[in-house]
């Protein structure tokens, strides 16, 4: 039983990060029906920018760690948001009328571009976040020792997910986003500036991705230029598992994928972890092709 609970917690912590990255995929898909394959790489860009600010700009030394991390989170989220905005202007907007396949190919190209840009700018070796930034405390919950950082990762994902959901459901801009998601033409006729809404989506999604990159950097310590691809693939899977386009779905999908992976390692074989996880994904999609929480769309006639 203790083994099971321990593995469950391991899975939830990994899943928390999948969920955080999946939010970006699902937001963009919800509005544009575009799978932004470059999202994982924006996440990696965030991790590298965070490291640059902390180490090269000496933010880590001059400020108390807590404020340094907070400041870096805000700055990097803003910078990656800007990169996301530019990405949309350069790679996606010119192709908006050209059909979905062209946009997907453009997204794959952008992903390769970011990976190689990171490699050329920073080099191909592994980079390491400074160790002193990592909060090193343990929480005892129901008799289980849990590293505090794991709870923090899950908490950050949940808080961001709820904030995003409130933004989408309770604000005017959120309503405009949902309107654009349902029908761009009709939204334009209602006086919504569609281009501006889409730009906003590309500010929020990548911004969250950048923040997730720093979280991974601080927690796991190690970043490399290919991390965007592996996390992106898992997060994309999580988004589909939960029902792509649906924000709580990304959360559910991420946590579920993390837990399934942990259980596959625990009760099957570590080497077969991914195979089992994707087998489960296929089973779920056969039963519920739209994912766990179905995307709610207006019926189009």
């Amino acid at each position, binding site marked *: 039983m203790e*083994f099971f609970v*321990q*593995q469950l917690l*391991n*899975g939830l*912590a*990994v899943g928390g990060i999948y969920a955080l990255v999946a939010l970006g995929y699902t937001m963009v898909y919800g509005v544009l029906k575009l799978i932004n394959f470059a999202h994982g790489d924006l996440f990696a860009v965030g991790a590298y920018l965070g490291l640059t600010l902390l180490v090269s700009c000496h933010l880590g030394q001059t400020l108390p760690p807590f404020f340094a991390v907070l400041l870096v989170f805000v700055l990097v989220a803003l910078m990656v948001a800007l990169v996301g905005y530019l990405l949309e202007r350069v790679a996606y907007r010119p192709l908006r009328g050209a059909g979905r396949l062209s946009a997907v190919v453009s997204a794959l190209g952008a992903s390769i571009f970011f990976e190689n840009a990171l490699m050329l700018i920073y080099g191909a*070796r*592994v980079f*390491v976040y400074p*160790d002193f930034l990592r909060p090193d405390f343990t929480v005892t919950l129901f008799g289980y*020792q849990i*590293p505090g950082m794991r709870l923090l990762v899950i908490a950050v994902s949940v808080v961001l997910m709820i904030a995003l959901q409130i933004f989408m459901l309770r604000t005017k801009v959120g309503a405009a986003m949902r309107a654009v998601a349902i029908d761009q033409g009709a939204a334009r006729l209602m006086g919504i500036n569609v281009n501006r809404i889409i730009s906003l989506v590309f500010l929020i999604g990548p911004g969250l991705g950048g923040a997730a990159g720093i979280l*991974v950097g601080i927690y*796991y*310590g*190690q970043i*490399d230029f*290919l*991390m965007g691809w*592996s996390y992106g693939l898992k997060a994309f899977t999580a988004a589909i598992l939960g029902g792509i386009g649906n924000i709580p779905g990304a959360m559910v999908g991420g946590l579920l994928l993390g837990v399934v*992976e*942990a259980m596959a*390692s*625990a009760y099957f*074989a*570590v*080497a077969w*972890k*991914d195979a089992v996880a994707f087998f489960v994904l296929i089973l779920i999609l056969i039963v519920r092709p739209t994912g766990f929480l179905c995307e709610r769309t207006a019926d189009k006639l």
Partner: protein
Amino acid sequence: MKKFSTAALALTLALALCGTSLAADFKLGLMCPQTGKWASEGMDMKNVVMLLVDNVNKQGGINGQKIELIIEDDAGDPRSAALAAQKLASSEVTAVIGTYGSAVTEASQNIYDESEIVQIATGSTSIRLTEKGLRYFFRTCPRDDAQGLAAAAVIKKKGFKNIALVHDNSSYAKGLAEETRDALKGSGVNIVFYDALTPGERDYTATLTKMKAANPDFIFFTGYYPETGMLLRQKKEMGWNVPMMGGDAANHADLVKIAGPDAAAGYFFLSPPLPQDMDTEAAKAFLADFKATYKSLPVSVWGVMAGDAFVAIEAALKAGKTTSADIADFLHNAKDLPAITGTMGFDKKGDRVGDFYRVYVVDKTGAFKLEPKN
């Protein structure tokens, strides 16, 4: 300019050779990569062998016979190696030292064997080179499967009984894990956990939790340093204090940065010794000599292996073996030759016998310290 300097060099060499080749010198070939991607290794090989040959000649040679060194460039490329081998064969050398890359050595093997020239390769670790039954082929470097034997020996020596063996599915790490497992068969060491993790991930807590449930007293992860660093870090985070070992792919300074000095302290790994860490008397004397002559140390242990090859030939000459057949027979039966990297012998296949892999321990400051032999 380059052509001119090569010509000038050739001319000086030719003049120098004319001066010394009055007595019937022992003709020794050296085939090494002087150009191409491995040129820095080749430079070391050449410097090492030239230094040793000079020392012998200064002392009047061996049994009155001086050594004439003929150097050919293999460019780190199999085709150039075949040409270099033919040139050396037509210069009628008795023995050849070299070369570095396995594929390059392989291209020259048969040429030397058919010409009945002893060849001692220095950096070619591919297993099949000595599986062909060539009478004249030897090597001073270990085979690719030697590390598994070394790992098993260390595990047995340190007295671990229930071990966890983990690899990352790469052909190198998987091979090392399998060879270690085979070498431990019937030794009383139980393998309580055997699995592969996915390289490139960040979170190995699920793997570690499962491993912990199997209750091993020792972990051997055969993969590379990024995953090793994550394992050490997360093992520490779990509060699990179990000794862990790695193979030579863990030998990277970033390992300690990834794991953190606290988590890395006490971790140890197998690796060929770095030139500056070699602690035999012969090695210390040789390195001091090398430094005085070239103002730097060899970049890796592979260049020093060329020196070991020369020691083998020197020993054969001292025993009065001057024909290639005699030298080959002598080397096949040689034991405990005082080579630079440690004692050396050769088996029937021509593989080096004797330990080569050493244990490095990460100390409290995060530095790699060579564990003394005992």
